[in-house]
């Protein structure tokens, strides 16, 4: 069983980092790369196993069976990985590996790097834990590991005013959101006396109470904050530009999805799937999704700061993922709902790849030119062709041009929303129109006449170009087989997520 190594390897890497750091900078960087590469290997293996078997993988901490002696309910922490969990675990390990590889050159001028690598590995631990856990309190602990590591990383450059400002904003509001989630979990525990998600699902189905709905409201509110949905997206637009670019790539590509949309989907389907009216919940999520789509993408058009533009674009793309999840809930059990859910899962992976790429490009531009103001950056394509090519691929993918991966996932969401309610499809298309406008603007900046500031620019080194090329390759490869991936991976993942019965019986063993 490879599953525990998914947590122990990066945790070991983070704990050992202060000791390895004594051997100098090179050793520290090599250690971080090695640890994240091993994690990627384990995540690939876990994904392959779950995908091949098509069954939910259950791992119990502390003993062989999750059930207590002589009782038929689980008393231990369980880790439960279905196909969706395996997909996001693989995605986390991949993006984290790429980001760590990138930071070896990108972060070279900063100080305190032994803390940086320890924090980035802890961030990975927290996200992997959320992806695999089947226990509500364990989920909260990993959520806090992830959140606290990301607060610290956003404010990592603490000699800049924006780093501190964004960090404080993110930390205050984020702690409040975490407190809501903890309160919701406490209410559920008080009502049902269990924290195992599978058993809780069974209990809620047997006895749906008002407390369960209040708890759902509190937890969903906290999770919407973490995902940067619209009324509470303000931290994101500050945090992503202020963080170092390798961290923005992880924040935007992973944190908002793992701590936000993934956890929301897990909670809505696996815990509440049998106990509440999913239609109502679905429409509430759809409402926020539409707001997020429009506001996020529209705000992206007016930005002059490149990273801020990408941050608002992330808000907009979260809108698509939420829309998919919302339709998946509202049309639960129908083909439309399944396609929408598959589209949301697919878009989660795609957006992680392309937004990570875009932030790495932004990091390369800042690293070489020292500015992220779009008005000063015209004509970079002449001097930094490889970086500009990477940007072109990322921007085309995020808009959803056919040969790239963004097309298929957006198509699934458009198609299902059009079948579900044409009005929602119209909103989704308007969102994409805004998104296109924003990226075309940047594109014209990149390919315009070179400005004075750009004349002396040159390409960054290999350690920054190679991660970008890995992501470009991944985007193009995934774009070549969109329907195969959707049929073989994403639809089964959506099916497994919708099928609460197997999720519950995997732990309880039919009991």
């Amino acid at each position, binding site marked *: 069983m490879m599953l525990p190594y998914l947590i122990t390897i990066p945790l070991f890497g983070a704990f050992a980092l202060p000791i390895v750091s004594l051997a100098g900078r090179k050793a520290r960087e090599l250690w971080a790369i090695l640890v994240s590469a091993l994690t990627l290997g384990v995540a690939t293996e876990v994904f392959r196993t779950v995908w091949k078997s098509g069954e939910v993988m259950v791992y119990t*901490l502390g003993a062989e069976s999750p059930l207590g002696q002589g009782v038929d309910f689980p008393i231990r922490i369980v880790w439960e990985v279905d196909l969706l969990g395996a997909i996001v675990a693989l995605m986390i390990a991949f993006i984290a590996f790429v980001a760590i590889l990138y930071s070896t050159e990108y972060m070279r001028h900063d100080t305190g790097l032994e803390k940086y690598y320890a924090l980035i590995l802890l961030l990975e631990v927290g996200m992997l834990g959320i992806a695999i856990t089947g226990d509500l309190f364990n989920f909260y602990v990993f959520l806090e590991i992830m959140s606290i590591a990301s607060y610290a990383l956003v404010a990592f450059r603490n000699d800049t005013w924006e780093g501190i400002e964004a960090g404080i904003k993110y930390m205050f509001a984020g702690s409040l959101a975490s407190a809501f989630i903890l309160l919701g979990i406490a209410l559920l525990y008080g009502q049902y006396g269990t924290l195992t998600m599978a058993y809780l699902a069974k209990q809620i189905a047997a006895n749906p109470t008002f407390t369960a709905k209040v708890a759902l409201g509190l937890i969903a509110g906290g999770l919407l904050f973490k995902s940067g949905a619209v009324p509470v997206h303000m931290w994101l637009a500050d945090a992503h530009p202020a963080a170092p670019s390798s961290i923005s790539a992880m924040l935007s590509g992973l944190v908002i999805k793992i701590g936000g949309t993934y956890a929301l989907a897990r909670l809505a389907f696996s815990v509440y799937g049998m106990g509440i009216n999913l239609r109502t919940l679905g429409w509430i999520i759809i409402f926020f999704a539409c707001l997020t789509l429009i506001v996020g993408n529209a705000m992206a058009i007016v930005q002059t700061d490149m990273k801020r533009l990408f941050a608002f674009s992330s808000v907009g793309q979260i809108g698509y993922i939420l829309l998919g999840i919302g339709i998946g809930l509202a049309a639960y059990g129908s083909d439309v709902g399944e396609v929408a859910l598959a589209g949301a899962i697919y878009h989660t992976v795609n957006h992680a790849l392309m937004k990570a790429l875009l932030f790495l490009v932004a990091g390369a531009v800042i690293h070489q030119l020292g500015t992220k103001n779009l008005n000063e950056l015209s004509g970079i394509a002449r001097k930094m062709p490889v970086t500009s090519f990477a940007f072109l691929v990322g921007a085309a993918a995020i808009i959803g041009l056919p040969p790239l991966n963004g097309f298929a996932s957006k198509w699934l969401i458009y198609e299902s929303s059009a079948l579900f309610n044409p009005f929602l499809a119209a909103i989704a298309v308007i969102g994409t129109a805004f998104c296109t406008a924003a990226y075309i603007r940047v594109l014209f900046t990149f390919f315009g006449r070179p400005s004075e500031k750009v004349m002396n620019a040159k390409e960054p080194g290999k350690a920054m170009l190679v991660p970008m090329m890995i992501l470009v390759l991944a985007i193009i490869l995934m774009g070549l087989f969109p329907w195969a991936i959707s049929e073989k991976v994403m639809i089964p993942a959506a099916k497994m997520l919708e099928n609460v019965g197997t999720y519950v019986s995997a732990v309880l063993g039919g009991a």
Partner: protein
Amino acid sequence: MRSDMGLIVKTTARATIPLIGIFGAYVVSHGHLTPGGGFQGGATIAGAGILFLIAFGFGEMKKRYNHHLYSVLEGFGGLVFLGAAMLGLGVAFFYNALWHEGPILNGQPGTLLSAGYLPIMNLAVGLKVFTGLISALFAIAAYRRWRE
């Protein structure tokens, strides 16, 4: 600028710091028998360190504090915890192999050498909490000046 306290405070601190330290060590090592444990005991021992910092001043603390040592010890505490959790990986992560199979720490429940890996984990957490808190407070105490 004098940053340390008067004679009475210093003398009292000399007397109480070892007592606090011993009490904290007691809380950590009896975590599996009495209330308290790694975090509580570690925080108590860190309290002794903070008393030292306040009573004798930052200058005195600076002579006795080694950043690398504390940072390594904190990582070491985490590694010991993780190592103890992985001892029983043949059965499951966090499987208490020391309790079920020995060789040590599987004595009669209620005695000091019982509870399997729990005392080891308490010691590791205590070490991590103590070094972490001291490092954090030292770093805050060292934080440049009030204004630049």
